């Protein structure tokens, strides 16, 4: 488990973060924590961001791994018929859709994102 490098206070609760801003204790996550983490990175989370975060959280709960980008793109197309695939997902999170969905969703930092 990572050591806390900093703390984020959300609703008065201290949330321990590692050096890259991921939660040290995934159990500390709640929706407002995700919003606060994204806000620190200059991102205001909207419905599309939350679709991705919730999909990645659900995948992690089922399979104990983050989803492949290929899987996210296919599922995004199913639920968003107008989707342009990875372009739309990178527009949401330019620094890596799955990695940042893990970060804002309170999941461990993925060892790989493919």
């Amino acid at each position, binding site marked *: 488990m990572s050591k806390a490098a900093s703390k984020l206070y959300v609703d008065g609760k201290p949330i321990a973060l590692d050096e890259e801003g991921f939660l040290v204790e995934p159990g500390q996550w709640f929706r407002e924590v995700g919003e606060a983490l994204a806000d620190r990175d200059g991102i205001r989370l909207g419905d599309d961001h939350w679709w991705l975060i919730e999909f990645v959280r659900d*995948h992690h709960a*089922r*399979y*104990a*791994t983050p*989803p*492949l*980008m*290929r*899987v996210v793109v*296919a599922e995004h197309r199913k639920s968003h018929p107008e989707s342009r695939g990875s372009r739309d997902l990178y527009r949401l999170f330019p620094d890596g859709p799955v990695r940042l969905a893990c970060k804002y969703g309170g999941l461990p930092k993925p*060892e*790989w994102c*493919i």
Partner: protein
Amino acid sequence: MNASRWVIVVAATPAEPGSREMLELVLAAAALNIDLAVVFRGPGVAHLEVERFRSWRQLIDFGLAEVFVCADNRPGLLPGGVTEIGPEEFQQLCNRSVGVLTL
């Protein structure tokens, strides 16, 4: 059976509880849209145990690979979506593939 398919044979036991090294190799291939068949054989059948198979299940649920087992020591109840094949079918699968990678 597809002539552009790779066969990945999982023939080793999981390194340790929670280890996903072999799955990660398979996922890396799946990420490249490679047509894959994954076959559990011999000691590799241990991956089919319910909790260990949890992460492998994404291959089936998202159509990333066809999953087979070819072993005498397979569990009594196979996870859904895993197809049992005999030694001859396994050989055919390998013969018709582009290549076979054994983990």
